[in-house]
């Protein structure tokens, strides 16, 4: 039955002859492990295709949805994070294998006649693969992809004559936006894959025509050692591909593809490309001003030009130098080693720089925060709204933008700022303040020095702390202790300067409702009012124009929440 169907099919398609010629193609000189890279690349490209299709079912290319949909793939889609991990690390694996394949074929002298055209097809394939890597990188629209790709399109913009037009064309406008994503998306999933399939077809067809580039041996020896592709070479190829795919799975499963916070054009982000573009990135550091084009275009262009024209350079040299292909392979290898060294330099200089580590840690925290906020769904206005919709998170952002020029971060060494705000109005903060109001983290760097340190016994301090703490509308106040503190307030002399009537004396801030939402909001709006610091005030006034109502609300909420945070100074 099966046989009859097979016969029927064969008479229509001739598939048996096809299979036969595929399996029993002669490998001159015998099967070798070093021939495995090309077929492993084919396997990986297929894997990219299927994982890419799976991702495409969930991905949405728009500035408001891209990040959210990728985060959805990571967190909600069954096995989605594994699929994305495979696609992400698969790209890296392909680049590595391309280099190995290139080295292997170069040392075999595959650029010599009659394989020149196939070398060129391979060169085009390499360009397409790099372009796929570059375009894919932007699609999650996260901080890393956004900023790293900016560098690439800006480089296009520096080209003489056509630069500006080219950049606008690539971006789909004067700046990044929806049209950038739709363009990169079209390139990544339609145009470049189509080109890849086309040139892969040419590459494989020409490979079939000429066979592997055999080792340098007399023809009789090659013939004598020749083997059919099946079983040995096919086994080598499959075993290697299985090892590669297995490793890829392990890495994808254990690491997972990274996803930074959503692209934020207003942020300062440390832009670093994916590792395979680091050499180019490093090259840019050496060329300043007018010489920049040398690093961005001329040198890379020359290197690529050398690779593309290798068959013809060889044809020219070989008339004088019969072993020219060895020399050229050596030049290519040294060039690639130089590229690798540039990449290593980039990594090393980042490792040395503590600022890089801090920025990376900050970016990582921000990513976690965004992804935590996104669990409730991303607003239709886009993922940046996540921050604005969470008052505490947004408050922290406003604080760092508006307040931290004076109120520095508490863990700044040699603190020289206004009172620092992390842990503000917590019990620990109040206690520390009462014991030493002139410490640098409190009033030490202001002109306020009238406030005396409290030197009474610990129990009285605890009571006073609880009383002051209770003013901030806290849910966890110990009422009896606060009552006791209220009595001490008069007895211990606080009342000689501070009032508790909500009006104030102009001598020291009134403490009724101290650090509550209303108190804090009023204070930020009018710190110099008699109810607050009066004459002693040094803080700038934040009116509606400097701090709009919603930002004030966020800042107030953030400050109020500090009472349950730990102190960040010794």
């Amino acid at each position: 039955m099966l046989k009859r169907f097979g016969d029927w099919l064969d008479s229509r398609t001739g598939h048996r002859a096809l299979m036969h010629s595929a399996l029993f193609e002669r490998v001159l000189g015998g099967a070798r492990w070093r021939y495995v890279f090309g077929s492993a690349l084919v396997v990986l490209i297929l894997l990219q295709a299927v994982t890419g299709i799976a991702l495409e079912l969930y991905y949405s290319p728009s500035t408001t949805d891209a990040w959210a949909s990728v985060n959805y793939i990571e967190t909600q889609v069954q096995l989605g994070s594994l699929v994305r991990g495979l696609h992400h690390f698969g790209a890296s694996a392909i680049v590595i294998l391309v280099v190995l394949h290139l080295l292997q074929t170069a040392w075999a002298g595959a650029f010599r006649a009659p394989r020149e055209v196939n070398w060129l097809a391979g060169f085009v394939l390499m360009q397409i693969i790099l372009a796929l890597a570059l375009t894919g990188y932007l699609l999650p629209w996260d901080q890393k992809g956004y900023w790293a790709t900016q560098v690439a399109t800006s480089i296009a913009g520096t080209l003489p004559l056509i630069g500006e037009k080219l950049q606008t064309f690539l971006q789909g406008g004067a700046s990044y936006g929806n049209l950038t994503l739709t363009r990169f998306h079209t390139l990544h999933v339609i145009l470049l894959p189509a080109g890849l399939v086309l040139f892969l077809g040419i590459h494989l067809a020409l490979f079939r025509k000429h066979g592997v580039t055999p080792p340098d041996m007399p023809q009789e020896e090659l013939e004598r050692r020749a083997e059919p592709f099946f079983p040995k070479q096919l086994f080598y190829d499959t075993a290697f591909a299985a090892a590669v795919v297995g490793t890829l799975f392990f890495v994808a499963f254990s690491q997972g593809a990274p996803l930074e916070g959503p692209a934020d054009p207003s942020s300062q982000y440390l832009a670093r490309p994916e590792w395979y573009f680091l050499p180019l990135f490093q090259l840019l550091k050496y060329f300043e001003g007018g010489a920049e084009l040398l690093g961005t275009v001329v040198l890379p262009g020359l290197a690529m030009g050398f690779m593309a024209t290798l068959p013809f350079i060889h044809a020219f040299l070989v008339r004088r130098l019969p072993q020219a292909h060895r020399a050229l392979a050596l030049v290519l290898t040294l060039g690639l080693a130089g590229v690798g060294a540039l990449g290593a330099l980039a990594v090393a200089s980042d490792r040395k720089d503590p600022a890089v580590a801090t920025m990376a840690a900050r970016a990582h925290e921000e990513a976690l925060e965004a992804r935590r906020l996104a669990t409730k769904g991303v607003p239709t206005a886009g993922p940046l709204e996540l921050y604005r919709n969470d008052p505490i998170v947004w408050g922290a952002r406003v604080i760092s933008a508006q307040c931290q020029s004076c109120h520095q971060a508490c863990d700044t060494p040699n603190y020289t700022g206004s009172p620092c705000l992390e842990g503000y109005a917590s019990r620990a903060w109040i206690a520390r303040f009462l014991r030493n109001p002139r410490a640098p983290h409190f009033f030490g760097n202001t002109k306020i020095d009238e406030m005396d340190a409290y030197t009474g016994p610990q129990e009285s301090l605890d009571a006073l702390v609880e009383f002051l703490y209770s003013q901030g509308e806290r849910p966890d106040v110990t009422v009896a202790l606060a009552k006791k503190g209220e009595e001490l307030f008069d007895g211990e002399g606080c009342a000689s300067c501070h009032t508790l009537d909500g009006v104030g004396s102009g001598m020291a801030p009134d403490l009724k409702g101290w650090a509550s939402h209303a108190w804090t909001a009023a204070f930020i709006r009018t710190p110099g009012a008699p109810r607050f610091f009066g004459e002693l005030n040094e803080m700038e006034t934040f009116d509606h124009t400097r701090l709009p109502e919603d930002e004030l609300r966020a800042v107030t909420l953030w400050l109020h929440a500090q009472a349950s945070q730990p102190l960040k100074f010794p």
Partner: protein
Amino acid sequence: MSEPSSVPPTRRGFLGAITVLLGGAIAALAAVPVLGSILSPLRPAPRTGNDVPIPVGNVSDFTVGVPRRVELVRSVTDAWSRSEATTVGAAWLTRKADGTFTALSTICPHLGCGVNMDKQRGHFACPCHTSAFAMDGARLEGPAPRGMDPLTVEVRGQAVLVHYRRFKQGISEREEV
């Protein structure tokens, strides 16, 4: 399939078997996550807070006995995105003399077109395959397998609220999706 080869036949069979095994392993490794993710929407969906009643206006906005079409707008979480106000559907609301309301989903129980009001004939009519329904939603004619789907209406003080639900189309029973 025989071809002169330096590899003896038994070893050939062995290598062939391992090759098939390894190739199968590659395919299986790829298939699991790819198929798993593609089939992800088939998993039972978590219950969302989608049964909260939707306010559609005040009692006085409705004239007794005259059906009025209201849009049902509420916050929606759709895959990754959350919107505060999205139109999820519409209903024909009729205020009765006793102050209660009837509501009929505008989704035609045949194949899901939006049902209109035919004022001249005084009944509901589906524009797609000419199903017609009485004012109380009962099926009059056409291919629809059942009458229009009623929705629960709640009156809280002056406010009129609709509990929105969707039903399977094309079957004579009323089954929620």
